Structure formats: C-alpha cells, structure tokens
C-alpha cells in the first residue's frame, strides 16, 4: 500500500518538489518519518545536500531548508537522532544507526554546530573540572568569607540572641548562683570588662558558671552568654588567666564567630547540596565531609583570631595580657591530635597558640578584680 503524505505537498511551504531533484547529494539513506498524528513509522528516503534535506517517498519529494528542521535531544547518543520538521507541528524524521547523516548535516551547515557537544569527552571533563577548581579556590580563599560577612552584616544582632538563648537553656539546671556578694560583684565586673573590650557590642554579657569539674572548657554562645565549667575554673591559678579566658571568649562574641559559624555551615551545606545535584551515595558523603573539613579550618582560624583579639584589647584597656599564654601552657599536658592530623582539629595546636603570644608578658599589668573578688571566683 502506498503511503501518502499527511499534508498537501504542493501547498506546503517547507517542500519544494521542483528543486529537490536537482540537488547534489552528500549523503543518502533511509529514515523513519512520523507525522505526529499516528504512531506509525513510514520509511522514506532522505538525501542531504547543500541546500537542505530532501525527502522522497515514491514520486513525492520535497526539500526542507536550513531553519526548517531542528535536532531534537538525542540523550548524547549520535547513533540515534531525530529531526523535528518545523512546518508540520509534531512531525519528525528518526535516524537509526546513521551517525554519518548527522555529521553531514553539520558539515553542510544545515544544523548549528554546538561547540560544546563537538568537544571530546575528556576535553569537556577538563574544562568543567577547571571551572570547578577555579571557582572552588575562589570560594575557599575569598568568596565564602565575602558571603559570610555580607550575610552576618545583614543579620540583626537580635538573631544572635535568638540563636544563643535556646542553647543556654540546656545548662539552666546546672548553673551555680553566686553564693556571695563578692562573687556576684566579680562576675558583674568581669561581664562589664568583656562588654567594653571593644565598643559596638549590643549583646549584654552573662557569665554562666556550670557545675562540672570533669570538663575543663569554656565557650561563648551568640547573644552574650559565656559558659565556664568549674573544671576550667579549678585549672585557673591567677586572675590574669581568668581575664585572658574571658577576653578570648568575649572575642568570639564581638566578632560574632558563633553566628558566622552557623551561616558558614549553612552556606557550605547549600553549596554541597547544589554541587551534589543528582549525585548520591558515597559521593555525597565525600563532599559532605569536605564541607565539614572546610568548616573546621575556619573554626581554627576563628580561635587564632580570638586569641589575637584578646591580647590586643586587654592591653588597650591597660589589663595584663599574659594570662592566656600561661593558661595555654597548662593545656600542653592534655592530649592533642598529632601534627599531621591538625586539619581535623577544632582548635589550632596549643604550641602554635603559645608561640603566637610570645610577647604576651609585655605591656600593662592592670588587674580587674580585688583579691577578695578573685578568691570568691575561685571558690565557686
């Protein structure tokens, strides 16, 4: 049974039977024609020449010029491709195992050649990897900081308070209330010192003493809460060490390190999820851990920055700045990660921190508390 065109050849703007037979031919072969109305394939003869794509079935023939047909998505496989015939909505020619036809269509300039798809696989991989490396390097060295700074600046200080308040609630049951007026006065004076280390801090400082001698630690929450465990208090021998400790934790508040860490973590998480796209499994774990390592690196940088801030501001206010260094010397007896694994640590190596403070003993020697107040703190 003879197949008939689904449209009228003579009146079709895309078909030109008179000019079709006069074309020189680069390639000739068969393709399946679908008219877009029924799922039946019609095998027809196709010829590619300089003027366009000639299609023939029996005595009917026609010509589609450049722009009257376009390549549909092939899924990356040149062995199969189809051409949508624009003058006839839904109609298409499907080519199976005819990669040379596609090459001829491109060589004849009948299809726009996509420079990207023409690049070999390894070339595309290299270009993309290069882009990612350059972009990653920019983000690592400058871009992430810029984004974090801009975001933190845009966040009102009230956010810090909101972030910190829920975290400090966890300690409420273990808090020690200052038992004497001297202890209360000492804590008030200490909080005031932290607040005035640098102007502009909107948080009100609260120093919370948590009863747990097994933990030798202190930290600051966004919003102004500085938590000191009694384990850390017992480690302190001098008032200078107390001041150094508070100045260090105060630096985290002045510099909004807690908020910055949260923003940075969120941005890194967002970046990783964007990067993952459709990837899953071990690849996602790998990238996720890379994000965590980057965050740890920034964490170590924050600690070093807080050390420097503490030294500088204590001196500027006439206080003794040697305490932080002597306190760190006590940390030397605690086990740390070996040097080769320093990248896994949340803090810089203690030896490095001490050596960065070699001039800490120089400068003013002012103290904050009276002997009675300091003794009250030690008794907590």
């Amino acid at each position: 049974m003879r197949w008939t065109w689904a449209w009228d050849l003579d009146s079709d703007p895309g078909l030109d039977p008179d000019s079709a037979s006069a074309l020189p031919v680069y390639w000739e072969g068969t393709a399946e024609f679908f008219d877009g109305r029924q799922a039946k394939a019609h095998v027809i003869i196709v010829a590619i020449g300089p003027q366009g794509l000639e299609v023939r079935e029996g005595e009917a023939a026609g010509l589609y010029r450049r722009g009257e047909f376009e390549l549909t998505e092939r899924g990356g496989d040149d062995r199969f491709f189809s051409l949508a015939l624009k003058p006839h909505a839904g109609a298409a020619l499907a080519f199976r195992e005819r990669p040379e036809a596609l090459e001829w269509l491109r060589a004849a300039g009948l299809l726009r050649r996509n420079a990207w798809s023409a690049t070999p696989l390894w070339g595309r991989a290299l270009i993309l990897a290069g882009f990612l490396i350059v972009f990653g390097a920019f983000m690592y060295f400058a871009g992430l900081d810029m984004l974090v700074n801009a975001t933190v600046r845009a966040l009102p200080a009230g956010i810090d308070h909101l972030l910190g308040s829920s975290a400090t609630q966890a300690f409420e049951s273990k808090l020690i209330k200052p038992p004497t007026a001297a202890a209360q006065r000492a804590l008030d004076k200490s909080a005031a010192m932290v607040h005035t280390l640098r102007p502009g801090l909107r948080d009100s400082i609260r120093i919370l003493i948590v009863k747990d001698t097994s933990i030798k630690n202190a930290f600051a929450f966004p919003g102004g809460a500085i938590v000191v465990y009694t384990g850390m208090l017992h480690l302190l021998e001098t008032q200078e060490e107390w001041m150094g400790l508070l100045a260090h934790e105060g630096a985290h508040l002045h510099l909004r390190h807690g908020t910055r860490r949260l923003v940075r973590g969120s941005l890194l998480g967002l970046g990783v999820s964007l990067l993952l796209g459709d990837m899953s499994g071990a690849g996602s774990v790998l990238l996720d851990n890379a994000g965590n390592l980057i965050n740890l690196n920034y964490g170590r940088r924050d600690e070093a920055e807080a050390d420097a801030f503490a030294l500088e501001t204590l001196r500027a206010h006439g206080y003794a700045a040697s305490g932080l260094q002597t306190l760190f010397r006590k940390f030397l007896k605690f086990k740390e990660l070996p040097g080769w694994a320093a990248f896994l640590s949340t803090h810089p190596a203690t030896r490095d921190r001490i050596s960065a403070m070699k001039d800490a003993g120089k400068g003013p020697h002012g103290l904050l508390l009276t002997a009675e107040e300091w003794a009250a703190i030690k008794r907590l």
Partner: protein
Amino acid sequence: MSNEFPPNAPASEEPPASGDFHGKGGDLFLLWLANSALTVLTFGIYFAWGKARVYKFFYGNTEFAGSRFRFTGTGKEIFIGTLKAIGLIILLYGLFFAGTYLQGRYKLKAAGIVVTLIFFAAIVFLTQFAIYATMAYRASRARFREIDFRLAGNPLLFARDSIPRLLLALVTFGFAFPLYTHWKIGRIYDNLSFGNLKFAWRKDAGAYWRLAMQGYFLSILTVGVYYFFWLPKRFAFLLDHLSVGGCRFRGEIKAGETFVLALTNLLLVFFTLGLGSAWAVTRSMRFFISRVELENPSRLEAALQVGSRKAGVTGEALGNALDLGVGLGF
C-alpha cells in the same frame, strides 16, 4: 478505547518487542558534572535546566520496539514549577511555625497539638499529591514515535483516596502497605495512555500482598539473600499485570544476574568513592529495560495523538522538594 485487560494473546507470528537503554555511564557522569558546575556557578538557578537535561538523557536513550522516547519538557517550566513548590512549602512551614509560636506565647497546648497534626496531615497529603503529579508530569512530557503519553485523573483525588489506605497501613503496622502499593500502581496505570491507547492494570491485590509479605519476611529470615529471588518475581508480576492498547507486557530477570548486578554496582560505587554512581545507574537501567517485552507491538502503530493538554510541573517540583523517589518499582 477501553482499558480492559486483554486475555492471553493467541499464538502470534509477530515477535515481541523488547526495550533497550543506550545511555553511557560516562555521558551521565559528564552530565552530572556539568550540571553541578553550572548549578554552583549560577547559585542554584541552573538546576532546573540541568534536571531537564537529565530527563532528556534518560528518555532519549530509552528504546522500545526500535524507537526512542523523547522528553519534551523544558528547564524553564521546571524552574517556574520549583518556585511555586518552594512558595507552597514556605507557606506550609510558615503556618506551622506561626501555630507553634502562638501555642508557646499563649500556652495553648491543645492548639499546638492540632497545629502539629494539621501540619503532618498536610505533609502526607502533599506527598501523595506530589506522587501522582510527578507521574502525570513525566508522562505528559514523554513522547514516543511523536505521540504523547498522558496520565489523566486528578492528583488531589488520588491524595484523598490514598489517605484511608495509608491509615490502614499505619494501624496494621505496615501489613496493609502492599495493598496501598497495589492500589497506587493500578490507579496510575489505569489512567495512563499512549495517545489514544490506554494502559490497563489487572488487579490482583491478594496475590500482590502475598508476594510482598513473602519478600519482606523471607528476606529478613535469610539476611537479604531471598531479596534477589524475590525481585525477579515482583518484576515479572508487575509486567504480567500490565498492558497497553491490548498488548501485554512481560519480562523475566534471574536471581543470579540480579545479584551480580547489585554486587558489581556496589563495588563500583564503593571503590570509586561514589563517582561510579553514573555507571551503576546506566547499567541498572540497561539491565531492567532490556528485559521488558511487549507482545504484538505492531498494535502500537494504531496510537493516535489526542489533544495537547499538559500536566503542570509544580507537583513534580514539590515531589523533588519533599525528596520523594517517585517510581513504580521497576
């Protein structure tokens, strides 16, 4: 045409048509890499176009009865749909947080419980809505031999009808879940059509439930070994109950080859730290698609294009945002 399930076909001289998948792992990996790079460089905006490219890759490389599928969706529509889905989710979470805030502020414990229940009910409802809408979108953007697929039916009604079935699954501690799955597959296939040719699903809830129970319990008892014997049974069951335009599907996979596929994919992904996922995916696609057969495939040629009504993309984007892995288990 009706979507009556056809009787066993009489002996036919026409050989069954089979499927094939031509996608290469290297191409998919490159596609993922390109999508990741461009998505990062455009701060996430490109993801919609990247997703369209991934769909085009999978559809364009899937061949059946000598013809390829084609994805006709666009990145632009996915992007717009995603914005709408995000807006919907933000609205939902906003209502939830407003409710919990008011509960905390005015100490309305009962109101808090109601808000929480409404929130989770809304999530479950939206999830079911998104499952159907995702399938509707994917079907309406699938073209084969220049004829479009279509999933009729209303996702809202699907979500409404799925809730009692899910509740039943909940109160039976999951024992009734296979009944929901069976109903879901049937609901989708009974509404699916290729042009004017309708798909049909032969309902056999009892057999499916027994098959599912057998799979769960024997897989547990055999520390997972039985799973590789169960998977071929399920694959054959699903295909054996499915037809399109009066042509029945069938398919067979063997336990041994399923196990080898799973093991080699696992090793491939593990030893490449995940980078081999693209190859694992394309190998699996090839494995399953090449084992699907359709009897009397020439009947597909009778399919006529009907209308051009397209399903919206918001539901699909919602499914993506809710991280649903929507599929029918093949």
